[in-house]
């Protein structure tokens, strides 16, 4: 198990890393999936009717302020140790980012485009599906991407609540030694960057062609989110 340097450790323990990475991604994608299922319909609808900006923005402000380890700790106290607790915690952390982005994205679609669609006889749901959502896609996906990278990074803390993943290697120095801790830390860093890079490619692909330039701009997503987050309650 123990090795003198991180690289040797990595190659001596490939199957360990494989199982931990899979567990890590399972937990992360499950959490992001649930967060998307909750936040996307809610945010799209609120943005479509231009209501509830206070809700959408302040949920995000509070969500951003929630310390991840604290949410997991309270989860241990209430739900106990295991996969469920960590997943609930990660959903709570990821949901607000996605919600605010889709809300802002849909609410700020060019009103002229929406009016033109209405004038063409589209029903509200068709306007949402055919006009607002495609135009909002770059920002919506920027939110999903930010949330996913955040969740993959935060899922490292799942180990403290028995949620598994790469954190198990990082916090278990007695078993894996310093080399293992370093290898685990580097692995999770690589994983975070890989997920971010892959989602950047997907983001470009699913963006409607005329908007691709904007999609590239959305790469500065922490700032885009900062803009959403910094807006005070009532806009």
């Amino acid at each position, binding site marked *: 198990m123990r090795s003198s340097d991180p690289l040797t450790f990595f190659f001596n323990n490939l199957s360990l890393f494989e199982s931990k990475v899979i567990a890590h991604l399972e937990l992360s994608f499950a959490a992001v999936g649930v967060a998307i299922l909750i936040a996307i319909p809610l945010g799209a609808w609120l943005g479509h009717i231009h209501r509830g900006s206070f809700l959408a923005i302040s949920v995000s402000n509070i969500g*951003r302020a929630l310390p991840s380890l604290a949410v997991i*700790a*309270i989860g241990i106290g209430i739900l106990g140790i295991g996969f469920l607790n960590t997943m609930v915690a990660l959903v709570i952390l990821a949901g607000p980012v996605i919600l605010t982005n889709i809300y802002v994205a849909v609410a700020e679609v060019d009103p002229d485009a929406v009016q033109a669609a209405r004038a063409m006889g589209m029903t509200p749901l068709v306007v949402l599906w055919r006009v607002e959502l495609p135009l909002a896609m770059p920002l919506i996906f920027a939110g999903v991407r930010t949330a996913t990278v955040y969740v993959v990074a935060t899922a490292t803390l799942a180990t403290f609540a028995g949620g598994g993943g790469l954190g198990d290697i990082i916090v278990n120095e007695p078993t894996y030694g310093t080399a293992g801790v370093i290898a685990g*830390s580097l692995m999770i860093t690589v994983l975070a*960057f890989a997920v971010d890079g892959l989602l950047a490619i997907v983001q470009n692909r699913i963006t409607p062609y005329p908007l691709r330039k904007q999609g590239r701009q959305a790469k500065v997503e922490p700032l885009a989110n900062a803009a959403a987050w*910094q807006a005070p309650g009532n806009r």
Partner: protein
Amino acid sequence: MTVALHLAPAAGGPVIPNFGGASNCVVQNHQFCMSWFTHNFNSVFKPALIQHIELTAIAVGCGMAIAFAAAIFAYKQSWFGTPFSLLSAFLYTIPSLALFELLVQVTGINRFTAEIGLVSYTLLILFRNTLTGLQGVPPAVIEASRAMGYTPRQTLFRVEIPLATPAIMAGVRIATVTTISLATVAAYIGAGGLGKLIFDAIQSGFKTEFVAAGAMAIALAIIADILLVLIQRAITPWSRHRVQTF
């Protein structure tokens, strides 16, 4: 689950309750024992809270000093913006526990190491917001200040920086709540603060401590967020209208 904690040897006294003379609630490990919390607030929770605020204040202060200088330099020398932005984005994406563990290999288990990590996480937001704020100053205003005889330095300090203040304060606000969050993780490498109580609870399994320390960290983040909004509004009264209309 094996959890290995490196905690600084002298960091705080015993926080695991005395099960011999403890109340029924504590003995049965209920979800939250109010009496234990109030009884131990001054000895356990208050010092951790103060330590947590110190950790955050130092990190945001140092981060601001670095990011502010870098942003002004990038504002004057535009080539500098992209590399610094990329570097800080790189640091920001590294998962916190991994960064702390990697830094420990270099500077050891102590608060200094924790502060290096925390500062590196503040740079991206503070740098980008400061630079965006400065770049958002209308050129006409800058020209007017030149026409009034301001030197470039006077323009910077009396016109550009004040006008960039709302964006800078928004950055300070996000950086502060982020740091409060990451500081709980930093307790893993001996930074102390509320995170230490969470890690103590992970070892003892004492639920009241989980819930109390977690809730205090969340409350601290939300209160800090609200306070910074109020400060932001107080020092930039002119921006209230503009920001609300978005």
